[in-house]
């Protein structure tokens, strides 16, 4: 399996998953025309990584908008990682939010609630990359 890279668009997030590093990054806004089409390769990649590499996964999420379909897909990703964690896999999730964006902080809190994964909520200044 190779590095998974998807360029950011107005409607979809940037995806950068490192097969060697186990660092999975997603950034931007997500309201794709067809969420299933967009997220399917991402699920497949993670499933394959979990079954073949079995190393630590660090998921860095820097999102500023999610529509409902994307939220469902993102919750499924979290569930997938939670199952991996329950089976002994090491998983870190970092949820980055702009320091003045309370809605995205709340979204991060929703993701963090009621899951066995440690989801770290990390603020950043909006002009920081």
């Amino acid at each position, binding site marked *: 399996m190779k590095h998974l890279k998807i360029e950011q668009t107005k409607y979809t997030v940037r995806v950068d998953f490192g097969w060697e590093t186990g660092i999975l990054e997603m950034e931007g806004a997500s309201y794709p*025309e067809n969420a299933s089409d967009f997220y399917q390769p991402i699920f497949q990649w993670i499933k394959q990584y979990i079954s073949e590499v079995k190393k630590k996964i660090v998921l860095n999420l820097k999102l500023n908008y999610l529509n*409902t379909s994307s939220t469902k897909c993102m919750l499924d990703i979290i569930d997938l990682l939670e199952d991996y964690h329950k089976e002994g896999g090491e998983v870190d999730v970092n949820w980055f939010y702009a320091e003045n964006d309370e809605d995205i902080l709340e979204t991060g809190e929703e993701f963090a609630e009621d899951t066995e994964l440690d989801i770290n909520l990390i603020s950043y200044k909006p002009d920081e990359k």
Partner: protein
Amino acid sequence: MNQNNRDKKIAETAAIYVRESQLMEKIQEVQTKNSHSKETLLNEYILLGEEYGKLLRQVIKMTRIGDSNQRKLFSANQQIEKQKEELSRAYEKLDLISRKDPLTQLSNRRDFLEKFQYEIHRFERNGKPFSVVLGDIDDFKSVNDNYGHDCGDFVLVNMAKILKSSVRKQDVVGRWGGEEFILLLPEALLAGGKKAAEGIRKKIENETFFFKQQKIPLSITITFGVSEFNGTTDIDGCIKKADEALYAGKRKGKNCVAAASK
């Protein structure tokens, strides 16, 4: 949205629930077959309960996140509306500024010519001619040379005030350039325009321009050239005629009103 697009959208949304749909099919299959043992049914029930719990948790989270994102959109929309209003106000201000001569606050050339064009449209509808009066302050150069540019500006500002206060509400007063002023007098024929210009000329002649930094009062006069727009020429032609009349007045000895031929 037409039916095809609607069906497509429904199928797209259903695609993200494929795992839940498969589970549902499996459960229905178990329910329809009576051959399963009690133990198998219990296991299926437990599995279904777990999946249902998982889905319910997801739905609750999705609802909250959806609400949170709606607030975000609403707040962004309000921000956009506010910015649109600010932009609109700034545009109005800019438009106003771009039509005013900054020193005298009279219409500048652009604004005057737009109003001239508007008056031509009115003429085309009602056939009523109107007058254009071009004025030039006599010996203005000597004011600047002898008393400085501040004094020159003072004269221009006060001249603008006199012109503005001497015309009717519907008349347009503009600064044409330097020490030149221009008036648009709707529905005033050449004779009417000439009479109005003569009244203003006398007013200026009798006015004392007392620039505070100078001890002596200044006597300022102006020469006017008047032309009539009656459809025989265009904007440029009409202003040119007023300009030629103005310079005929200057040659005649200044401080007078000269009318162009119709």
